[in-house]
């Protein structure tokens, strides 16, 4: 969901201004962090283990912080 939202936001940016480029970088970071979290859960479950709740909750909070930060850079 966060990936979809961040990709949607990417289309609304001004790619030549410094601020727009900073927003792009933050939203791209959101995409990458969420991709990393999804891969982590997939891999750990594939190996028959339980993903760390702390990591998932912490990662999700970090993603939300990044998304909001992206709106203000």
């Amino acid at each position, binding site marked *: 969901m966060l990936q979809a939202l961040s990709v949607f936001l990417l289309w609304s940016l001004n790619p030549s201004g410094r601020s727009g480029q*900073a927003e792009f970088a933050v939203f791209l*970071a959101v995409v*990458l962090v969420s991709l990393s979290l999804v891969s982590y859960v997939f891999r750990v479950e594939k190996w028959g283990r339980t993903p760390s709740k702390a990591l998932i909750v912490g990662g999700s909070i970090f993603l939300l912080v990044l998304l909001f930060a992206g709106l203000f850079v």
Partner: protein
Amino acid sequence: MARIVRWFDSRLGLSHEMLRPVPQYAINPFYWLGALAVIAFVIQGITGAIMLLYYVPSPTQAYASTQYIFQSVTYGTFLETVHLYTAYAMIMLAFMHMIRGYFVSVHKKPRELMWVVGMLMGVVTLGFGFTGYLLPWTVVSYSATHVGIGMIDVLPPPVSSFLSFLVVGAGGDATVLLRFFDLHVVVLPAALLVLLVVKMYMLETHGISEPVTGSEPLPEERRKLIPIFPDVSIYLLELAALFGAAMLLISVVFPLTLPPEYSAAAASQYVAQPDWYFLWIYQVVKIAAFEANGPLGQYGLPMALSVISIVFVVLFLLPFIDRSEEKRISRRPLYTTFGAIFVAEIVILACWGLLTPGETIPDLQALVVLGGTALAVSIVSLMCFKLVFGGLGRIGGGVRVSPPTSRTAPVVTAGLFASVLAVGALSIGGLLDSVVGLFMDGASPALLAPFALSLLGLALSVFGTIYLIYRLDFMTGEIRRHVRFLEVGSD
């Protein structure tokens, strides 16, 4: 869809095991520092290729074209910033990869040549930094690069003439810029790719080095092999995505600004200073003894470069110098201490160089700071071996400290804790005080002595904290009588 996948698989053989599976113990970011450096290289390749569409390698247009990328190209600032920070990350990761390899003895039989190839890759990586720095043709990059080029003349004649032919040529600034550009975008990437293939081939032959676990064999579960595709690839994807995100966020927090264009007038207002990864070399060259008007005269600079070359030669030949089969840190006190001194000296020299741009370093200061750092690190290292490993291996003939009894253990631990707190607080206060003084008044022996003492105190308190962490078993609330160290190197 399945038919399409099967069609490609039957032609490309993707489902065949092309690469050696990876043992479970290697699912740890520290095993993938080299892979992350390669990912940084790939990101640089992509961002660099886009910038190539606009950059013009000529002294009259290099700066203007770089400025055009910054100001007019879509996502141009983003491209430049990410290109620069991934270059920094690549150099840092390569350095960390080497240092980790040194401490866990990956250079030992049968991986000696892997170490040599890795060192060559490290030199090529530094070459990327050196050649790429000149390309924007800013006053900072031009001045710093020409300090480096000037050093070529004092090298021994065969090396000097070869490097002059390769780098400088005979056509002035235009030739230098064009050669740096060619080296940066063609020669060095090609060399790195060839070396990467050679290193990967050797990695496939020897596999990933096993962690050293002392007398106890590695548990079977940790030896379990994991296929490269898809399992390890997914793990790498996680690391790569996090690395990419970190680079992007750093580029947002510290956006790049383009310094002024090079001109003789502008250059006179700037102090030539190389980028951070060459600062340690620059700081050695700035020591008064090596200056042209120093006691060594015209031989000063060649002498300084010889000292730096010896460091590189020793690093290259390390597998043939450190030939014992012992890999445990606890049994390698000499090499462990040398490694710690090397890292500390590089860091101190680089930070010192940052604080004293363009200043000649008095011999006494250099002696106090470099000698003091070596002494402080040696003392901390010897204390670590004495207290944590319980002996000094071959140096001390296996001297062991008798562990405290269960009655005295809490008293010893509480005493240590109080000492660590006191030393740590005093050191941090002293360090802040001396750093502020150094920034405000510049470097002087009166300020450097408390700075060195505070650093020593801080090192001792860090060591004390590490010791306490291992001494206190937080899971059970008990105090350990015997302190077992990290898995790597324990007996």
